[in-house]
């Protein structure tokens, strides 16, 4: 009984399938894709791939990136993952300004709305904070070590976001918990005052997002392993509405395609006007759109956008300025995967805004030729334009996705015997002995 759930997660993390991620610059300047240890950024203004210069102290990502984000201002970008590195980049110079080493693997990252702090969550469920200095300048004292500011007791944090007004930091975990904490003026002393817990999910929470970045009132949206998307009044921790994605999918899919585990919500992305939520579902080849009525406080099924048979998005993104929904499919850490196979596929949905609610047609997905900057863009972010090669890789991603996503997120229940075995097999213990 010595070993612990968290330690288990820590150990098993090594070979865990890592989905490709996508993030969009808030003003539409660029789009970033992470797959495995690779970070690919495309400058939409210049129409060219960005050459990242990783020169602050030479350490580049060497293992799967698990979290990426742009700051609200668009000035900064952060990436973090299994190599225990948290890297902060300036978007104008494309330079890495900070590389922070975490003691444990990193599962989530966020930048405060004023660009002053980066926060990251480790595999013990602890959130750490590092000061970035004024406007993310590069002058920061050396003794600026990460300080722990809050923790989810022994549960891995899957998603971390700042509220639009910057007053709160929300964290979601694999134990169906969402915690909303006041982000204090001086966060170096910790974020101790919990505003609310948003409790209602009956399985892991995989993603959270705040709606309406511009208006005063905002809501929290979450998706989880229980195949629901939920709308929260996060100030009071009240569940406002629940959309049962499983029921909807049941109507759309063949009966044999819908076992419970395969309908976990993989990602959610609100539109910039807050009226829509795009939902990626673990085994659904497309995106589900929900209408989010913030007056009636309702979240209702709108339509699905089906994509090609082999395409299941692993991550979604949008920016405030444009009406595009960016989606990516890809994965690393799959068995027998060579690094040359770090290919992704991108699919872009135009007009991701409230007009979709009244229109009867499903929006068309952009053809490769209609994508901004076309082949140049796709080559940079996908890694290849070779359809045949891509199909091959994506087929294996598809197969892995169907089983791994859920396995990746649910806590492992080991038998006593197996636990002992794993303990004996642990490398860190072997080294010490």
């Amino acid at each position: 009984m010595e070993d612990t759930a968290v330690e288990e997660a820590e150990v098993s993390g090594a070979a865990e399938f890592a989905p490709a991620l996508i993030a969009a610059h808030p003003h539409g300047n660029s789009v970033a894709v992470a797959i495995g240890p690779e970070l690919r950024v495309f400058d939409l203004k210049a129409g060219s791939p960005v050459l990242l210069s990783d020169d602050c102290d030479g350490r580049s990502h060497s293992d799967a990136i698990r979290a990426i984000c742009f700051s609200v201002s668009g000035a900064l970008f952060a990436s973090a993952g299994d190599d225990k590195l948290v890297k902060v980049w300036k978007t104008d110079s494309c330079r890495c300004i900070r590389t922070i080493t975490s003691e444990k693997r990193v599962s989530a990252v966020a930048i405060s709305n004023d660009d002053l702090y980066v926060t990251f969550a480790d595999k013990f469920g602890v959130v750490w904070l590092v000061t970035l200095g004024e406007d993310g300048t590069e002058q920061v004292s050396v003794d600026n070590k990460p300080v722990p500011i809050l923790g989810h007791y022994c549960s891995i944090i899957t998603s971390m976001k700042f509220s639009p007004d910057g007053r709160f930091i929300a964290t979601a975990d694999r134990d169906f918990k969402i915690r909303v904490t006041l982000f204090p003026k001086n966060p170096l002393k910790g974020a101790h005052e919990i505003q609310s817990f948003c409790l209602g999910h009956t399985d892991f929470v995989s993603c959270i997002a705040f709606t309406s970045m511009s208006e005063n009132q905002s809501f929290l949206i979450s998706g989880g392993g229980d195949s629901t998307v939920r709308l929260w009044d996060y100030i009071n921790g009240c569940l406002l509405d629940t959309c049962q994605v499983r029921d909807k999918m049941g109507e759309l899919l063949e009966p044999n395609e819908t076992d419970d585990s395969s309908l976990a919500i993989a990602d959610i992305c609100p539109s910039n006007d807050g009226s829509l939520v795009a939902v990626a579902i673990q085994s659904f080849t497309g995106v589900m759109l929900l209408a989010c009525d913030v007056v009636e406080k309702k979240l209702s099924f709108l339509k699905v956008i089906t994509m090609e048979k082999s395409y299941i998005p692993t991550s979604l993104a949008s920016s405030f300025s444009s009406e595009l929904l960016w989606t990516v499919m890809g994965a690393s850490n799959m068995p027998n995967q060579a690094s040359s196979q770090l290919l992704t596929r991108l699919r872009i949905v135009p007009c991701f805004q409230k007009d979709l609610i009244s229109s009867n047609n499903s929006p068309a997905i952009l053809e490769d030729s209609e994508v901004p900057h076309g082949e140049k863009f796709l080559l940079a972010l996908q890694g290849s334009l070779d359809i045949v090669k891509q199909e091959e890789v994506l087929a294996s991603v598809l197969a892995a996705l169907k089983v791994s996503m859920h396995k990746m997120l649910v806590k492992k229940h080991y038998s006593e015997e197996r636990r002992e075995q794993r303990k004996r097999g642990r490398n860190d213990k072997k080294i010490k002995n």
Partner: protein
Amino acid sequence: MTRTNGASGGGGQQQQASAAGKLPRKRFYRARAHSNPLSDSHFPVPVSPDEVDLSQHYPRYFPADKGGGEEPPPPRIRFADVGCGFGGLLVGLSPLFPDTLMIGMELRDKVTEYVKERILALRASNPGQYDNISVVRTNSMKYIPNYFRKAQLTKMFFLFPDPHFKEKNHRRRVISTQLLDEYAYVMEVGGIIYTITDVEELGEWMRSCLEKHPLFEAVPDEEIKADPVVKLLSTATEESQKVARNGGQTFHAIFRRISLQEE
């Protein structure tokens, strides 16, 4: 998800014994000395505080046949004894605060069963008493927010918690900066947290965690002396009695939940 069983649940031959007012015998409920608070649970956990079925725990306060007309708002649990062990504190507190609902939280299954039977037996042999105490099997380190709403509790007790001596196991301690955030959340401003231990090192640890925490402040000595609850800390529980029998020293830290002062 699932409902939690209150003191009225439980089963087996002991149930009959306690219904007849006989106290359950501890030897039927022998259990492993320690449980690992981090291992995954195999007991039901309420999805949120709304799902905690108080009528199972405190049937006298939640009569099945409502008389119609204006109902006063149902009472809420106000005291929590975290890691309650065999329940001595609840039994001691019950007559002191007869109108306050209290719950013990205990991780060990057999020990929880014992406390359930003990309460049922006490209720049976003392009609009209001990209706305000109950117990739940849970991992308090993970599920406190599933049981209590914000600012719901007025007292929390941590009596003789497991010491977890090794440094790498300190994060298993029930008092830590991180967990105090959650305790502060479920406690009302002005509420009091009571801790006591016979392990000096742990006593210092709990005190220093509380002193460092911006949402707690030490209760002044005069107040501690006047608080009728304090005497129970070192006398009411099974562990405290064991310590007293062996003439051991105890170390307490008693702090008040305050609101945050932003400089």
